[in-house]
């Protein structure tokens, strides 16, 4: 089983059409990986499916980097 960081990075790479090696823990979806607003919505949808959770809009808005996505998943899965 891959760890959460790897799973998040994989989804980010798939959704944004970038090489997985380019996806760093500190990468910003918009500034570093070239995502537009619709990409970020799709990314959140993909995270919801991968981790079988629901990410409320107000939380989703705060997820702008790979680290923040990992943090959200960790916090959610620990509950």
């Amino acid at each position, binding site marked *: 089983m891959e760890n959460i960081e790897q799973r998040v990075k994989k989804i980010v790479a798939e959704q944004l059409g970038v090489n997985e090696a380019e996806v760093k823990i500190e990468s910003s979806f918009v500034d570093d990986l070239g995502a*537009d607003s*619709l990409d970020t919505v*799709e990314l959140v*949808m993909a995270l919801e499916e991968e981790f079988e959770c629901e990410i409320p809009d107000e939380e989703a808005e705060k997820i702008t980097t790979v680290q923040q996505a990992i943090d959200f998943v960790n916090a959610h899965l620990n509950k």
Partner: protein
Amino acid sequence: MSLQGKVALVTGASRGIGAAIAEALAAEGAKVIGTATSEAGAAAIGERLAAQGGVGMVLNVGEEGAIEALIDTIAKEYGDIAILVNNAGITRDGLLMRMKDEDWDAIMDTNLRSVFKASKAVLRGMMKARWGRIVNIASVVGAMGNAGQTNYAAAKAGIMGFTKSMAREVGSRNITVNCVAPGFIDTDMTRALPEAQREMLVQQIALGRLGDAKDIADAVGFLASDRAAYITGQTLHVNGGMLMP
């Protein structure tokens, strides 16, 4: 059979324009789910579409949560919806001075809010598939106005604005969003009009006759197909030359 294997949802498909659209899409090979507000209506749709594998389902677009639940059920049973035709609509005609709040609200809920709800609910599947067709049934009245239909015309014009904005939002995902604006079509809805008014309306139609539901269905079938891949955000007026915007 250009729509072979695609799942299509047509709201308000028990009669009139909706029924013709459901049949046209089914004839092109789509797996059509047509909705009606009653069990009997849904059963009738199922019978009509049975030969092409289509089904009828009950949907009251004004009922909270009903659209989302239906789209969820369809996705589980048949797969994600690739083609959505927002056709369900009602009229509550009356002069503005006498129009009740309920008449306004009923039209907005059934004719406009339902378009928002259904379009939003199908979007996830279409975005993942990188293919989608949404065709909203507007009306000539939304573009030219009609005394006694301030509510209906406002909702239909609202659909056109919604369509343009949504088309801009999701175009990058190969999803097209268009309107078909029927003119004066021979259906139950227009048969309810007084004879004198019908005659007066026909005089304004360049082709000199009422439209047939099939005329609208053909336009929807075109917009749903790959032949219309480069058309989005448009309103296709099918009105026999009643209005040339």
